[in-house]
């Protein structure tokens, strides 16, 4: 590739990525030259500014037609733009939590890393949303994963944090290896790593034997990626890692990393297996043949997540299982693949981003005050800080999916999708709603602690860090706003993303 080729690309469509990578590098260097004792918090604020700048530049790209550069490895289509907004919004809120995070044992020396690793992880996710090639998808995935491994273990002298990082690395590597193995089948059959040319080759695939190989590849890729979603059967890491990691990292994993996971699943599954014929040209795509398997995984994920959450006494563990359950709900949309599929997934992740980050913000501040993450520590929160308790109450109601909140609209979309397709998924939808009722038990269990139980310690919450205040205002307002006026979201999507119809072009 000559220099001329390089300059001929429209690099402008990568501006958001360039901003993030540039600022991540800048923070790294600043961290190196800053005096050892100086407060590194300023680096976090720089990171937040960078994310906002990236968002603004992304907004500037909204009108751009879908375009690919670098030999079709990087493509900016409406799917990429829509999910990049989610990642950036999640990343910004996580950094707000991070700058408010109380320096814990062994964290002071590492403060610099603590901020720029969020940015590199975010960058990995953004690359995934805009990949047109298996290689760049995989690189994005690894960039995100490796940043997360380090972040999980960043409390160097904390036993739980170390355990969490160790488990995460080992499980994560196994999952990645399985995914990669599955991808190698696809490459072997088609001789290409580019998603669109893979799709073209597979459409013409005539040999039924090859279809079986592809089926195998599908299962391996999906199971491997299920790890990132924290879906069954690869969900076991989540409780340990969520519990051990610092709360901002937990927030990052449960929101940004999960969103990126769904992005890569959608990219690979729909662009490859959504078009690959199962029995010769013109027959049903493999993805539709595999619906039953995805349904089983979705059902198992919802049941395991919600039922095991009932037994937890540690709130971060409980939220890990809750996060598993929500992944299961989104997988229901993947199972039904209705015509509103992209919007459904996008909206649910948007709602989940706000609900979950808000709840974790409250958890972080209660943890900072009480020094532990037991659910019992929420006892009497209403007396100690009515504002925090009411905010948490609203977020929990949203997570439980009550009407008037974004969580409800998200679930409605999923239900409509499940019922409107040719063969409606009655059983799966019933499992979803039944497990939702189960989830009332544990979400309202926290409510019981906050509102009904007396506090062990009556001291008030004074001086809530500004970052937490920002996160709480944004998340509570958004959870209600998108619940009462969901058309704001749909108008935005319809105006700018045109039903995601350019996904496969």
């Amino acid at each position, binding site marked *: 590739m000559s220099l001329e080729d390089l300059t001929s690309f429209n690099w402008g469509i990568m501006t958001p990525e360039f901003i993030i990578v540039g600022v991540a590098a800048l923070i790294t260097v600043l961290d190196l030259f800053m005096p050892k004792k100086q407060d590194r918090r300023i680096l976090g604020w720089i990171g937040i500014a960078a994310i906002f700048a990236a968002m603004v530049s992304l907004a500037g790209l909204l009108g751009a037609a879908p375009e690919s550069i670098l030999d079709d490895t990087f493509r900016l289509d409406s799917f990429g733009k829509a999910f990049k907004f989610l990642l950036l919004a999640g990343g910004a809120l996580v950094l707000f939590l991070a700058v408010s995070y109380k320096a814990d044992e062994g964290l002071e020396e590492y403060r610099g890393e603590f901020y720029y690793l969020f940015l590199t992880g975010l960058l990995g996710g953004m690359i995934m949303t805009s990949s047109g090639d298996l290689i760049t998808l995989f690189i994005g995935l690894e960039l995100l994963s490796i940043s997360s491994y380090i972040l999980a273990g960043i409390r160097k002298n904390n036993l739980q944090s170390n355990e969490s990082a160790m488990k995460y690395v080992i499980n994560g590597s196994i999952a990645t290896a399985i995914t990669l193995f599955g991808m190698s089948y696809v490459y072997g059959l088609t001789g290409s790593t580019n998603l669109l040319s893979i799709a073209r080759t597979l459409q013409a695939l005539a040999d039924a034997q090859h279809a079986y190989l592809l089926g195998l590849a599908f299962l391996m890729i999906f199971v491997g990626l299920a790890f990132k979603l924290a879906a069954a059967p690869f969900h076991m890491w989540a409780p340990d890692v969520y519990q051990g990691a610092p709360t901002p990292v937990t927030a990052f994993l449960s929101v940004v990393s999960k969103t990126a996971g769904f992005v890569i699943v959608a990219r690979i599954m729909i662009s490859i297996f959504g078009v690959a014929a199962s029995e010769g040209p013109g027959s049903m795509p493999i993805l539709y043949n595999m619906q039953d398997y995805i349904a089983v995984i979705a059902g198992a994920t919802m049941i395991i997540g919600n039922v095991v959450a009932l037994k937890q006494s540690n709130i971060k563990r409980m939220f890990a299982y809750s996060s598993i359950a929500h992944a299961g709900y989104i997988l229901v949309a993947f199972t039904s693949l209705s*015509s*509103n*599929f*992209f*919007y*459904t997934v996008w*909206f649910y992740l948007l709602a989940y981003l706000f609900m979950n980050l808000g709840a974790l913000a409250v958890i972080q501040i209660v943890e900072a005050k009480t020094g532990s993450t037991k659910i019992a520590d929420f006892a009497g929160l209403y007396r100690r800080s009515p504002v925090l308790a009411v905010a948490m109450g609203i977020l929990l*109601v949203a997570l439980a999916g*009550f*009407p*008037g909140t974004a969580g*409800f*609209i998200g679930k*409605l*979309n999923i*239900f*409509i999708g*499940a*019922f*409107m397709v040719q063969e*409606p998924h*009655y059983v799966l*939808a*019933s499992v979803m*709603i*039944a497990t*939702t*009722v189960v989830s*009332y*038990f544990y979400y*309202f269990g926290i*409510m*019981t602690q906050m*509102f*009904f139980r007396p506090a062990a310690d009556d001291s008030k919450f004074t001086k809530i860090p500004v970052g937490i205040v920002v996160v709480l205002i944004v998340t509570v307002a958004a959870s209600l706003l998108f619940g009462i006026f*969901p*058309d704001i979201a*749909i108008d935005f*999507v*319809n105006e700018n993303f045109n*039903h*995601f119809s350019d996904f496969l072009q």
Partner: protein
Amino acid sequence: MDLSFVLSLLVFSPLLGIIVLAFMPKTEEKTIKIVGFLATLPALVIAIGLYLHYLAGKALSDFSVAKDWITFGGLQGAEAGFWKVNYELGVSGFSMLLVLLTAVVATLAAIASIYIKKEWKGYFMLFLLLEIGMLGVFTAENLVLFFLFFEITLIPTFFLIGKWGYFEKEKAAYSFLIYNGLGSAVLLIVIMILFAKTGTTNIEMLTQMMNDPNVPLSGDLKLGLLIALLIAFGVKLPIFPLHSWMLRVHVQAPPSIVMIHSGILLKIGAYGLIRFGMGIFPEQFETLAVLLAILGVINLLYGAFLAFIQTDFKMVLAYSSISHMGIVLIGLAAMNEAGVQGAIFQVVSHGLISALLFFLVGAFYERTDTSLMENLGGMAKGMPIASGFLLAGALASLGLPGMSGFVSEFMAFLGLFEEMPWIAAVGCIGIIMTAVYLLRAVLGITYGQSHRDFTGVLDLKGVEFVPVVVLMALIILIGVIPSVLSSPLQATLETIMLGLGG
């Protein structure tokens, strides 16, 4: 004059009270209680206004409002008005009566909240939120909006029971939440299937579409949906064997909330069955009529027999509610004008009677710290006026002619005797049992042997008279002039009968 803002004003008027309360110091007990009470008045005034508007001979459809609200994305037909859920409120004769009942009971329950001992501010904010939910349920014109308000009633009730209730309040709150959560989960599935298949949730449109052969809903699916609806609203009503949560709530919740719960919230079940079950699936409803009649008789007898052996007066009333809801089912199962009218009368009448009786239980409990009949014996000496009202309320409940209970029972049974005389005959045992258990309980309390000294116990006084007098007056009014209810119902009944093909 454009009146379409009226219903929105009605439903959301308690919001004003919530906002005012939010800015008040939480220690001002008296002011908070007065503000809480005043905040229920606008809704009451508007509800009475609706009734006067009707009496003046004008159409209730003047109040209907429809505004764009939610669109569901990426779906075909979005331009043609489908796949949209609008903000639609409206009233018919039937729902207007329930709105009026809600507004009256809510105001009276706000007065009954004088017995609340702690955290008045939070209490009244939740109370008013609950009122918004109840008013919304009866005015919603599409299923999603109905569901939204339905769930809005759930959360405040959970807190009101769990925080301000009696000894086992948390357990009661949980069983309330989970049973009702399951019920509304089933309801949500029904709504979503209907929406996904037809592209609309507007009740009127759905009613029309069900007769349209082009709509892709098979008879089996409709029957399945109706059974699901029966379960969903059966939890709320409650229908045996889905009733156990309701007993706990009636015993554990504070009296003002039980007034609302027994007076209004249970009626949402009946309203749903009539409006959606009978309204949208009339054909399938007919095939289930015998089942409903049997379920109704079981409810009636089961409630009556168990009420007979209770020692706690609250439990007597709780079982009595189950028994009386059986009469609603009996009336509906008859599927004729008398039966359905009887069912609706029973809904309103029981709402008033149970609110009265539970208020009196609260008044007794406030003074004696007990609701066990054994301990309350001989109350007529200490509280003659309250005991008199108690006796009158019980007589209304057992169906004394001249009071509202009689009219509804009479019509419901009249309807059923016409269709299924044998089942109705069995059901009649329940009516006798009702007299037995109520008189046993009430006579035991008023004139029974006294084990405690009630000297120094004060009788009803001051504002406590307002709820008992108002409720008693309405009960007698309906008993003497049933047309105050039946004439607004006429149009609704005709529509239902048309759907049933009768």
